[in-house]
């Protein structure tokens, strides 16, 4: 069959509806106002919630890059049609790169206690001495910014070659992107772990767990999958760009991935707990102590229910994964669970000597809401710029005729 004979459906062009744009920006404004309220009422707590919001959205961008990499490397056809969404989802990363500087340079010891040694209670100094070679501001910033910078460079190249293929239909772009994806994965494995160690584990610098990098990776990947699912479902609604292109089998596949990584989250989270519980060393169990005493036990158990029990039984059914409304609700739930998970990792570190109860205030959600709505704005704007579907991809035909 020559190319001329095949007529595959093209995605409708997408124009970011102005009503939605206003809504996203207004919500981002409300988030900023809440964030300001947080800083006015309790600045120490507000800095931690800024980190939560920053990591939540940055992980949505990073996870999208990883999804794209595995699709390229596995030569997968099932996700080709919504590749423009993952491409757009990574467009937040340059903003995250820039926002990293004020977060670290202004937040410093108020976010990561070890950065401000002078204010640390004396008994804690001892823990820091042997870790100086790793935990120092220069090394911290170089590691994270190099990782973020390399991911940005790679995602931009992917995007450029993918768009070039739209124009000339040359298969060589797919070959280049696949090779780049293989290199990306080598960078990714240590990079995402180190980012997790630096940004989240070092909040409690006395503690360490080699599983923690994988734990943060699961949250990153699954929340990005959930976000991709929500964008894809929204764009395949009646009259949307993906109508008649992204079929029931494709969203079923997304649902299966969400389901699978619900189990993986439980596996990694439990694995981390199990070895620490078994060895029973005070310097390791302290992290779970901080999340068990002072009323945290109920929160920790609620996290297991919210991040594993509920989505596991909910997403198990085939019908749920093939129904856009039900799958969308599941994906939304998992996004909430990821936010909850970040809260659970971050807030107990407000006082490293324990004694912080699990209070919630409406201001806590401010930074996450603001950055998330900015993220929606950036992604939708990016999708609206180019063709919504990479229809010149050599696997596009297979994508359109996807079977179970």
């Amino acid at each position: 069959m020559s190319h001329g004979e095949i007529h595959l459906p093209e995605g409708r062009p997408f124009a970011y509806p102005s009503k939605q744009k206003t809504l996203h920006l207004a919500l981002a404004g409300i988030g900023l106002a809440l964030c300001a309220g947080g800083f006015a009422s309790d600045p120490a707590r507000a800095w931690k919630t800024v980190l939560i919001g920053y990591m939540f959205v940055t992980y949505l961008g990073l996870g999208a890059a990883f999804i794209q990499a595995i699709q390229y490397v596995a030569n997968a056809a099932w996700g080709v049609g919504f590749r423009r969404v993952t491409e757009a989802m990574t467009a937040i990363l340059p903003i995250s790169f820039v926002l990293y500087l004020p977060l670290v340079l202004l937040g410093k010891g108020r976010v990561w206690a070890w950065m401000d040694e002078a204010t640390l209670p004396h008994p804690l100094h001892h823990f820091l001495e042997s870790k100086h070679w790793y935990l120092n501001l220069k090394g911290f910033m170089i590691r994270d910014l190099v990782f973020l910078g390399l991911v940005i460079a790679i995602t931009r190249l992917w995007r450029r070659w993918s768009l070039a293929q739209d124009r000339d239909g040359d298969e060589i772009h797919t070959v280049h992107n696949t090779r780049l994806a293989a290199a990306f994965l080598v960078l990714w494995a240590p990079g995402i772990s180190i980012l997790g160690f630096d940004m989240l584990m070092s909040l409690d610098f006395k503690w360490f767990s080699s599983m923690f990098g994988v734990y943060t990776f699961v949250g990153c990947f699954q929340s990005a999958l959930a976000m991709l699912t929500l964008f894809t479902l929204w764009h395949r609604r009646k009259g949307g760009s993906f109508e008649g292109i992204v079929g029931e089998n494709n969203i079923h596949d997304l649902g299966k991935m969400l389901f699978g990584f619900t189990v993986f989250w439980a596996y990694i989270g439990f694995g981390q707990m199990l070895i620490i519980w078994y060895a029973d060393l005070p310097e390791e169990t302290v992290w779970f102590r901080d999340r068990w005493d002072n009323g945290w036990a109920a929160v920790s158990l609620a996290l297991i229910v919210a991040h594993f029990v509920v989505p596991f039984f909910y997403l198990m059914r085939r019908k749920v994964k093939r129904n856009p409304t039900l799958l969308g609700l599941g994906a939304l739930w998992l996004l909430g669970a990821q936010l909850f998970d970040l809260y659970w990792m971050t807030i107990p570190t407000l006082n490293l000597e324990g004694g912080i109860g699990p209070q919630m205030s409406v201001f806590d959600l401010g930074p996450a809401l603001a950055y998330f709505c900015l993220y929606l704005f950036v992604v939708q704007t990016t999708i609206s710029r180019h063709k919504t579907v990479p229809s010149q991809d050599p696997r596009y035909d297979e994508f359109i005729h996807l079977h179970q």
Partner: protein
Amino acid sequence: MTEQGILGYFDGPKAIILAARQMKKKNAFRKWDAFVPFPVHTLDEAMGIPASRLPWIVLLGGLSGLSFAIWFLSWTSAVNFPIWVGGKPMLSWPAWVPIFFELTVLLSAFANLGGMLLFCGLPFQVDKPLDLGFTDDKFALWIPESEPGFDAIRFETMLREAGAIEIRVVGKGDA
């Protein structure tokens, strides 16, 4: 025992899917089957074959694996031969979770394999009319005599109308 019935040959996976869809509309087949050289996706859907009951058997297998593991580990560690290990309580279930998980998976897999063999009548049921071409390049729908309301002439026309390129009636002594 040799089954009797009609075989309708079709010209490839697309043709057999379209034919199955068309024939399903005219008659609610219950006993029919398809012979294809490789898995043809969505053919089961086109033939209107209901979802398998196998998942329930697998669930049963998984649950029995899980409850066996819980019972066995509790009994050995706390009742039959209690040993104090690492200052942990006798019933320290977190350490057993990997075993709970593995036994659940193992018995699920056994139930899956066993249930599949049972439902397919394997490995004993080998009396279907077999054309060697079904392992190579032939695609056919099979309507056995046990099909409710079996009428050779009616079903033959139906197969022809659905685009069958060849019809074979399998009688006693054939195949």
